[in-house]
């Protein structure tokens, strides 16, 4: 009997010991890559050493799945979200899960980058364009080109079922009259591969598994500077963009510290860090990183947030029918 009781008691004890919450920390849920998230947190803690930041990284859709189930269980941990796109933020705002904060830094930003009531703030611009391997036969310059026969079976792209940026990209492209759903049908007919997130797409192109990919800008621009054999192209029809917004949750345990974090991200120093990490900063006047064209040379496709939010699930289902999964 004692032999059995001991491990059982031990496991209960272990369980209860591990449920002790840690005091006075700021919990951040983010979809930034790990090394960038750690850099951002380190820079914030250098200014506010009294605040301990614990962060979690996952793809935006899965982060949302996690957050909603935690909310249902009443054990939601995060104070802050720093995720890919404003459409997801908009839906959280409508469900009443966010709290407003009017940061003084907002007057330096263009009004389309943040929510007028202060529910969320864009922190950078991440555009989606085309990447090709340096040994690839062609150098595509337009979206249309990827649907032509010489690219059959040679293109890979992220799936909007996995990636927030890819969903926005789908929404933006299907709004363009010359492209629309016909374009996606042409891609599917051209055996274009739709897999998980942007990271996987980039790795496929960098390792040569596919010569061409549709991908977010910072991965190829940053990695090619380190020697990765790839080139990034801003297609002539324009690019879609997500703003990686930050927001404070309604149920934040530590709203005071969370506001400091938002202020830090929007400060000039925070924006310079964004540029150092290889992203286009959201703040005008901060030097963009090496390898990016000047801000005014980039054509952005328009995006209707409300419409995108309304159609998101229908778009995902339609995409899933076209590309499987």
């Amino acid at each position, binding site marked *: 009997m004692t032999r059995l009781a001991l491990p059982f008691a031990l496991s209960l004890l272990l369980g209860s010991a591990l449920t002790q919450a840690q005091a006075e920390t700021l919990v951040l849920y983010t979809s930034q890559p790990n090394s960038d998230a750690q850099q951002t947190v380190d820079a914030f803690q250098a200014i506010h050493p009294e605040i301990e930041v614990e962060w979690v990284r996952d793809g935006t859709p899965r982060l949302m799945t996690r957050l909603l189930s935690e909310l249902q269980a009443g054990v939601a941990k995060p104070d802050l979200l720093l995720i890919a796109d404003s459409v997801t933020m908009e839906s959280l705002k409508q469900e009443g899960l966010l709290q407003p904060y009017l940061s003084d830094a907002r007057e330096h930003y263009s009004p389309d980058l943040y929510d007028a009531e202060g529910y969320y703030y864009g922190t950078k611009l991440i555009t989606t364009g085309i990447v090709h391997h340096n040994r690839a036969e062609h150098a595509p310059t337009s979206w249309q080109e990827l649907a032509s026969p010489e690219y059959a079976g040679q293109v890979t792209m992220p799936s909007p079922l996995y990636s927030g940026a890819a969903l926005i990209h789908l929404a933006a492209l299907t709004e363009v009259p010359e492209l629309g759903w016909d374009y996606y049908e042409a891609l599917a007919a051209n055996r274009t591969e739709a897999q998980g997130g942007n990271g996987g797409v980039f*790795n496929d192109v960098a390792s040569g598994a596919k010569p061409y990919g549709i991908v977010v800008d910072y991965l190829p621009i940053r990695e090619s500077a380190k020697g990765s054999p790839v080139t990034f192209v801003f297609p002539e029809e324009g690019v879609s963009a997500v703003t990686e917004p930050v927001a404070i949750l309604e149920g934040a345990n530590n709203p005071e510290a969370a506001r400091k974090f938002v202020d830090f991200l929007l400060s000039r120093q925070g924006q310079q860090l964004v540029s150092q990490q290889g992203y286009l900063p959201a703040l005008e006047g901060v030097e963009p990183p090496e390898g990016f064209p000047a801000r005014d040379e980039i054509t952005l496709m328009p995006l209707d947030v409300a419409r995108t939010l309304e159609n998101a699930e229908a778009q995902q289902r339609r995409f899933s029918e076209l590309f499987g999964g």
Partner: protein
Amino acid sequence: MRSFSIEVGQQRWLFSLLLGLVVLLSLTPSLRLLLEALRDVDQGVDSPVWRVLTSASTWRALWHSLYTSALGMLIALLLGGVFAFVITLTDVRGKSWLVFCFMLPMMIPPQITALSWLQLFGPASPLLNSLGIAPALGSPQPLYSAQGIGVLLGIQSAPLVFLALRTSLLSLPRELVEAARISGAVPIQVWWQMILPICRSGLIAGGAMAFISSLGNFGIPAMLGIPAGYYVLPTLIYQRMASFGTGVLAEMAALSLLIGLLALAGVALQQHLLGRSRFGLVGHSGRPHGFVLGRWRGGVEALLMAVLAVILVAPLAALAVSSLVPAMGVPLTLESASLGAFHEMLGRQGVTRRAMRNSLWLAGGAALVLMALCLPLAYHLQRLPRRWQGMVLSTIEVPYALPGVVLAIACILLFVRPLPLVHVTLYGTLGLIFIAYLARFLVVCLKPVAASLAQLDPSLEEAAQLAGAGPWRRLANIVLPLMAPALFAGAMLVFLLAVNELTVSALLWSAGNETLGVLIFNLDESGESVLASALAVLVVALVAGLMLALNLLASRLPRGVIPWKD
């Protein structure tokens, strides 16, 4: 007479307690799932079950699952069988190193295995490029196929077959074979008429474990199948969950019922086959027979080394190469090599140390607790009527057969509310992952113990009972020493599977409770393959280090306790 009734009473009470624990561990999550899956079943066409059963993608994924798992099982049986027979029964040299290396592939997380094989065969493969035989840019990757998935699943689960088979081969008494040889039997007759029948239970147990673990494997079909649009049941469930969130929980529960039924069918078949191959053996275990290979020895050794080079050395080399380059796609040269990724993971990312600590605690705790549970459980299971045995075993098999993603969801459904009496919410803690691991890996620990117990000569215990030894004393003094190798092999398996586990923890982790598997998967997914590879190299080094530490202890442990030591 009175003492006899006390003994029976004690046993019955103990067994009820054990059975209660097993049911709690194994059945509750499944029942909770069943409830979820059969919700609104009376609504006919609109019910989740109906929607799942009428969807073509369900049946496609089911067929894919069966096909890849069966292929994986065959390859695992072939690889594990060859290694187990040659190493246990012949006089090849360097046995402990051969076994050591053969066990390693199981510890490499499946998604990393897949990644490193992709590195090996892709158009940018450093190996093929340096040999000048790399395929053209963008040419199809041979691994993105059902066969590619099957081969890797086979390599991943071959050590399971090896261990199960070796356990039953070690129980083969030398006297039997010697008697046959003296009577003039040629080696082929000894193999065919004595060794094969005796290790049939090991073969069946190993094959079943390989099949079921392949069925629930997520890392390999996710890395090789999703890009090709080739879905098996676990990846289909994961994909749907990731896209549509908890709204499709009921449908996913219905899908996982399918896998559960599939696994149960496998277990039932296994029980049926095992029931027909029972032997009572007299003699000592742990004294394997040595066939003398003579002039064939060098060739056999070279063959084993060649197999190991393909399944272990090449992928590990690719992994090491990926961890040393500054960015993906950069060829490795003396100038480009950098330790930046290791510095980042060990020096700057606080999450690495946390994940290491979490994984070691979880895996070590689960192995110890299950070791304590399995011996009495297997012992009493053997004394049950055959029909009940099958039922209990099938119950235990379920959490392991379900894909981890599904077990995780069942656990979320169960533990989302505070526990009664103690008012602790387990959701969002390491405790939840621990409980899920106990449920999931119970069968892994129990299988070798049960297989080895089935071979135990009952007359030994009967003699002790006649001499007046009680059940506990018999268990401690007779059964435990004989079972030690199997028990330890089971605990080792649990530890090795748990330390790199991904699919359960993928949904159960939360801030501060990351496991190593989750960390590697997340790194890889966010495009940081170089960091992921660096961490994977560290993990492989850590586990290999643990195994070496066990080697140093070998002289103080009973013989046969460490699977790769004779």
